[in-house]
């Protein structure tokens, strides 16, 4: 292969390292207005009165809006959201009013002049409490909300989705098991902390055309949501997303775009910009949902897990239009990458008066695996077996059956596990450097499938220029993950041309073709498939013309290094550029027209699961499976944990670009390390206590351990060149691998992330007291 499998340098590298790449905040337009937002100081409060008169009177203020201006609810899967609070404010920081002004400073000042009178309401600040019948209702009209048919809100409760998985007979299986355990875990809210905070500009033209420039992962999904919310026909709404400075899920849905559109509508012809601060990012964009997790496990002494019963309670925050799908994803992956005959899972999405939960790299998998993968270690120790052996025994093999009853045709589980065990030198017990510095090793596995609608669509267009170069058009977004490079490589491979001859364009709903979303680790797979089809379409059209030109059957011709060439007589070849505008004849006539290839992809036979049992024959496009290993050192006197080494091995199907794969894997390990040791949104009575980098810590370069990246390649039958998505799965087992290593080091099981020095010392004190007692 000429392009796929090559470590091509990122095609966007020069623009990014020189600062020339354009992001939304770089957009400055004539007559631009600046927006600012008035936010609720209470986690739950009825809005009694909003007086905007003083703000409106301030010179330089153009418009002030409140929730009353736009009462229509919207949402991706469940229409429960207003961009500006209507009736009640449901989390601290929720937008209750917004202004557009001539300068950002005037906008700031105007916001201060808006007077809001509230009546505080009892708040739900714990999801488990929020499920109880006497809990205050955050969305009393939930039963009237429009919802996608695969989601099941429970009327007159705070439960916006109850996902059920029922496989086999868990109760009967537990009775027959040698050992039955039950463990609980808690995973707190964290934030994505993309380098670039959310930013958007909206302009309403005089003829009704609306353009939104945003830091947006999924321009088409955002276009759809905004169109529904503001009754704008899709042909009159253009969403443009230039480079995105990191998304990690936080920019998949709609956030601040819905605040500026009504302001732009009142100021036709003038662009309105809203830029979130880092503090906004923590409280007012999206956060990863919190999770309360209970796992009951039945295992026999031979190491075979017979039954698992899970209860997942997700702290969804004030709006769960997106969160309901995380609850579903967590539910259907709840058996982990294991072949377990009996599985029962209840996964609940619960409204709380917390910041809005949304997609975050892993889409529920990092959270549930922190529990699942520690639980595997716990049950292994209960039966006196090495945890790695329990993983070997239960791991999904080709032909194995998943939790939802799907047969795994391909599985690299065991290859990944053995590779990780080898790279972390699992059999070599680490040596403690001193009695107060203890070392341990741990491994964890993980899996993920794209949580996309079963009929999610992708399309691509490839255009040949007159000189034989190409413009590739997709709406698979470059959000820092390297898609522009990988997708270019797929096109170059299919056309058998130098990747440098292809320029990629994306992120403009008026010009680049439909793509459901850039989420779910699906871009290489879905957009990649569409691009491969587009390139094949172009090839097919050109070969039709080349038959005439070369006087040879199409079946004997091929694309080779920028030429159409005869397979048997390699010297008989014509440069591709000869066909760029169709084929011309000596008499001056032509046929064919300009060369454009079109590719449209929907995965066929991808089916919904059964409503009552959660079972299905092929609900997932594919599953990406892999493992992490970690070695840690714990200072038992200060409680500090230093991660010395992390190793990774995943079954990528086919690695399109080993260099960018390695970067993704390294980034994933570091991000998982952050959640394992540092990151937590500290919430008290609905208030985020640490909404800046002063007290919300993410890893620095100094915290990065030795990283070993490996992969195996069992091709995905439906993937482009065998590839499956890896971006999110790579992060999934990192945190539990660290937690398992900490257990081996000091013998303490931490059922909560992050594991802080404070927690370590407290646990060691308790351990000491227990030993004495």
């Amino acid at each position, binding site marked *: 292969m000429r392009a796929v499998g090559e470590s091509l340098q990122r095609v966007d590298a020069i623009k990014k390292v020189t600062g020339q790449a354009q992001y939304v905040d770089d957009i400055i337009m004539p007559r631009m207005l600046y927006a600012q937002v008035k936010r609720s100081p209470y986690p739950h409060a009825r809005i009694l009165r909003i007086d905007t008169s003083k703000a409106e009177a301030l010179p330089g203020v153009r418009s002030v809006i409140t929730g009353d201006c736009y009462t229509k609810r919207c949402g991706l899967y469940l229409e429960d959201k207003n961009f500006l609070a209507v009736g009640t404010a449901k989390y601290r920081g929720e937008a209750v009013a917004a202004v557009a002004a001539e300068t950002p400073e005037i906008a700031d000042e105007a916001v201060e002049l808006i007077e809001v009178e509230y009546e505080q309401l009892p708040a739900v600040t714990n999801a488990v409490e929020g499920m109880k019948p006497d809990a205050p209702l955050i969305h009393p009209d939930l039963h009237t909300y429009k919802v996608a048919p695969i989601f099941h809100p429970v009327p007159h409760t705070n439960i916006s989705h109850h996902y059920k998985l029922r496989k086999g007979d868990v109760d009967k299986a537990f009775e027959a098991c040698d050992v039955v355990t039950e463990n609980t875990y808690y995973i707190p809210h964290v934030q994505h902390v993309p380098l670039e905070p959310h930013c958007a500009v909206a302009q309403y033209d005089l003829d009704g055309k609306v353009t939104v420039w945003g830091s947006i992962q999924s321009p088409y999904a955002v276009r759809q949501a905004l169109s529904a919310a503001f009754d704008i026909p899709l042909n009159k709404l253009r969403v443009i997303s230039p480079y995105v400075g990191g998304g990690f899920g936080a920019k998949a849905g709609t956030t601040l775009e819905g605040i500026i559109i009504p302001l732009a509508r009142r100021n036709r012809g003038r662009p309105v910009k809203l830029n979130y601060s880092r503090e906004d990012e923590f409280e007012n964009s999206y956060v990863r949902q919190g999770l309360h997790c209970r796992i009951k496990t039945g295992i026999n002494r031979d190491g075979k897990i017979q039954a698992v019963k899970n209860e997942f309670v997700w702290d969804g925050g004030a709006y769960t239009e997106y969160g309901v799908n995380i609850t579903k994803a967590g539910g259907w992956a709840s058996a982990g990458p294991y072949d377990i005959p009996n599985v029962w899972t209840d996964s609940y999405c619960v409204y709380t008066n917390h910041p809005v939960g949304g997609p975050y790299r892993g889409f529920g998998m990092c959270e549930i695996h922190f529990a699942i993968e520690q639980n595997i270690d716990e049950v292994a120790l209960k039966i006196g077996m090495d945890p790695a052996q329990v993983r070997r025994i239960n791991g999904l093999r080709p032909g194995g059956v998943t939790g939802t009853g799907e047969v795994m045709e391909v599985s690299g589980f065991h290859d990944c596990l053995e590779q990780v065990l080898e790279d972390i030198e699992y059999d070599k017990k680490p040596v403690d450097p001193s009695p107060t510095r203890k070392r341990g090793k741990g491994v964890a596995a993980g899996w993920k499938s794209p949580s996309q609608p079963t009929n999610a669509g992708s399309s691509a267009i490839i255009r040949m220029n007159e000189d034989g170069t190409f413009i590739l058009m997709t709406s698979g977004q470059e959000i820092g993950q390297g898609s522009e490079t990988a997708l270019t490589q797929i096109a170059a491979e299919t056309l058998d041309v130098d990747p440098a001859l292809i320029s990629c364009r994306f992120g403009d709903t008026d010009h680049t073709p439909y793509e459901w979303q850039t989420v779910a680790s699906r871009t290489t797979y879905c957009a990649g498939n569409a691009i491969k089809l587009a390139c094949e379409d172009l090839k097919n059209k050109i070969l039709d013309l080349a038959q005439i030109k070369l006087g040879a059957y199409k079946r004997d011709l091929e694309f080779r290094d920028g030429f159409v060439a005869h397979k048997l007589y390699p010297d008989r070849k014509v440069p591709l550029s000869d066909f760029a505008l169709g084929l011309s004849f000596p008499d001056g006539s032509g046929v064919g027209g300009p060369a454009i290839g079109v590719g449209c992809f929907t995965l066929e036979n991808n089916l919904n699961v059964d409503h009552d049992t959660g079972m299905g024959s092929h609900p997932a496009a594919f599953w990406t499976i892999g493992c992490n290993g970690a070695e840690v050192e714990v200072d038992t006197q200060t409680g500090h944990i230093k991660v010395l080494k992390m190793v990774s091995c995943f079954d990528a199907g086919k690695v399109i670009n080993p260099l960018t794969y390695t970067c993704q894997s390294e980034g994933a390990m570091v991000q998982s390390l952050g959640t394992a040791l540092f990151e937590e949104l500290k919430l008290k009575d609905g208030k985020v206590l640490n909404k800046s980098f002063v007290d919300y810590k993410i890893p620095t370069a100094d915290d990065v351990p030795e990283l070993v990246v490996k992969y195996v390649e069992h091709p995905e039958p439906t993937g482009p060149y065998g590839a499956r998505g890896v971006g999110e799965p790579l992060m999934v087992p990192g945190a539990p691998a660290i937690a398992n290593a900490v257990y081996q080091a000091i013998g303490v099981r931490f059922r909560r992330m992050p594991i802080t020095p404070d927690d370590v*010392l407290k646990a060691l004190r308790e351990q000491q007291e227990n030993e004495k007692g």
Partner: protein
Amino acid sequence: MKAFEYYAPAALEEAFDLLDRFEAEGKLLNGGTDVVIQLREKLIAPKAVIDIKRIPGLRGIAYDPEHGLTIGACVTMNELGNEALVCTHYPTLAKAALSVGSKQVRNRATCAGNLINASPLADTATPLLAYGASVVAVSREGEREIPLDEFFVFVRKTSLRPGEIVTAVRVPAIPGANGVFTKISRRREVDLSTLCATVLKTGEGWRVAYGSVAPTPIRLRQTEALLDAQPLTEERITRAVELARSEISPISDVRASQEYRLEVAGVVLERSLRALM
């Protein structure tokens, strides 16, 4: 951020004039790593911001064995921490200075500002307290030197009087002094201290200073007295650790619990003493 007038006086006299004119509504600006945040978060809303960085004579570091070290008010943390004289004669101070924030922050932040901000966890405060440093405050009435332990009054409160400008920090020379600076933080780089401490062994005895365990950075006088009394034995170390824990009054906050700080304060003392034995 509320609009303010910005002044950059070229001489101390000019700065005094501005302070006279704006009184409590004038805010002195040095590196700005605290003041700008206070402005941005609307904790202060001064009428005038008076930048002292253009005043000549505030940028130098001077050392002689007799008078010790003089650190100009506008000397940055990076300048201080990387100065060879400081690294040689006051290594704990150099280490503390380089532990503040990030490299970018240290390019702006100053040692004098770190003290004037009077945070309980000021990183450079503990080595300076241990060395018996003082702050040089100048006003129209003249110059006075305020010993650091009298300079800190309470959380973010100093004994500076209205109209006074800090021009330097003076640190006595203590020949043969040997010390350990420790910073306990959630993350090793770019973090605030959960707890910080300097333990200094001088010819005469021990000096122990802690940050983030009381409303101000403090010296642990009783612990010092215990350590001074007799040679360091295992038993004395144990007693010193216990005494130190009783001498401090940390709180629980978003960074750590009171219990954690109490426990680790002892660990830091023990480790420092063993390193200096």
